[in-house]
């Protein structure tokens, strides 16, 4: 295959895969954020059981490789006679993993907010959800944005693992392209550049959002 032809194939194949990668990563990051909040809330709960369960979940999810969780999620339901869509298994596996890490990040964020701010909110009669949404989350997000963005970048890289269950994301498409072109060096270099570009963009926009969030407060 000649060079211009190869370039055209790459341009036709890989960006679509990158979009799938980013879509799945974003979905997993948001789902992981909710899981993280939930775990964090259980972890901070005065109920011993909730605290313990959350602790075990966090340790397990951080300790088991994503690939293993992914394969389990993919094959276990079929053992029970259920069909597990590969995209769903992929999002779940990634979300559970990043959720455990996000839980720890968020916990540090919540812990750094002075208790008095909560007491003021209680004394005024604010509802718990409103306190979370208006008082806590904006501050926690501002404080932990750098770590959360870092977590998202790790997630994008980890998402290459889901190619093993035939989700046609960036790496999977690259493999398919290599199979027809026999040009692994060029194709995987292009793949690497796309991953890198995506992550640089995420880091850059994360930085912008962070600036926005903390603007004005410092005096």
């Amino acid at each position, binding site marked *: 295959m000649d060079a211009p032809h190869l370039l055209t194939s790459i341009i036709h194949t890989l960006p679509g895969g990158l979009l799938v990668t980013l879509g799945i990563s974003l979905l997993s990051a948001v789902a992981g954020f909710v899981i993280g909040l939930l775990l964090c809330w259980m972890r901070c709960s005065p109920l011993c059981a909730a605290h313990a369960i959350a602790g075990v979940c966090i340790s397990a999810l951080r300790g088991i490789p994503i690939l293993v969780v992914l394969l389990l999620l993919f094959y276990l339901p079929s053992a029970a006679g259920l069909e597990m869509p590969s995209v769903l298994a992929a999002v779940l596996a990634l979300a559970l993993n990043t959720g455990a890490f996000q839980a720890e990040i968020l916990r540090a964020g919540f812990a750094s907010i002075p208790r008095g701010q909560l007491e003021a909110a209680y004394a005024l*009669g604010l509802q718990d959800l409103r306190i979370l949404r208006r008082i806590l989350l904006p501050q926690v997000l501002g404080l932990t944005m750098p770590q959360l963005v870092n977590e998202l970048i790790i997630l994008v890289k980890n998402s290459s693992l889901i190619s093993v269950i035939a989700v046609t994301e960036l790496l999977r498409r690259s493999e398919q392209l290599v199979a027809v072109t026999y040009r692994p060096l060029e194709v995987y270099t292009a793949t690497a550049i796309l991953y890198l570009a995506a992550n640089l963009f995420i880091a850059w926009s994360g930085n912008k959002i962070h600036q926005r969030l903390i603007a004005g407060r410092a*005096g």
Partner: protein
Amino acid sequence: MAPITVHTPPVLQLRDVHKHFGDVHVLKGINLEIFPSQVVCLIGPSGSGKSTLLRCINFLEEYDCGEVLIFGERIGYSTSYDGRRVPMPKEHIRVMRRDLGMVFQHFNLWPHMTAVENVSEAVRSVKKKNITEALRISRDMLAKVGLADMENRYPAQLSGGQQQRVAIARALAMEPRIMLFDEPTSSLDPELVGDVLDVMQSLAGEGMTMIVVTHEMGFAAGVADLIVFMEDGRILEQGTPDRIFHNAENRRVRAFLQSYGRREKNAGKAHTATNSHNKGVCNEPTDHHSGAAGSRGCPQKRTAHQNHQHARHAGRRYLGL
């Protein structure tokens, strides 16, 4: 006892309230009645349980036994059919707290919100006002505490005294019927104390029921209707400022006030500075006072202010300075 005990029911009653932190017995049977428009100053040595008492009133702190009645209704617990004490649903506590405004020693403003957002948050979400109405109420309140032109500042861009006045505005915007102040001026630089006390005094002048934990004896002597002296989890003595500051029966109360008098005398310089600052503002209404003195607030503000000057002198007289 307070002058108006016979005909009006108390707005707040504490009956034999006890509180432990672990093994430490912090409140050892508190009995107290507070009547409408009364200004009660809670004084006493540090660690005597003043903050804890205040926090039991709005149930930021659970109490172990006894009862706290707000407008006759017990906060925090209800009695089940067989006479046992059961925790009150959170939602009910939230509703009861609307009658109680609280101001903290460390302001506890939300740093990611501007002054007006701090004030309007609960007006919107708890009083369910729409945003326009909430902003109008909040601006009025900020003007009332002399911060009309500061509404878009973040807490970090305000002085301690201004932050505390935002915190007062935030509590007042909820139209509470009782205000609780926990050492509102203790973390302020001396020259900023006067502004906050002015606001509190004008509030007292409007007939707000107030419970104030304070070490400002001048304010207590000049503004309070009732002084309550606490030590080691007990109320040792209560009475009019005149009685407590002149003729306290309890030896420990007298000793405490004497040590205070000495300290105030030694700090005479700071005291004069505060006073001259106030006079400056009085003669030449610039800075934050211009907001309140500009339009509606003017005559009232002046009167309150002069009262306060009077109160300060009275306070010094009480303390024999």
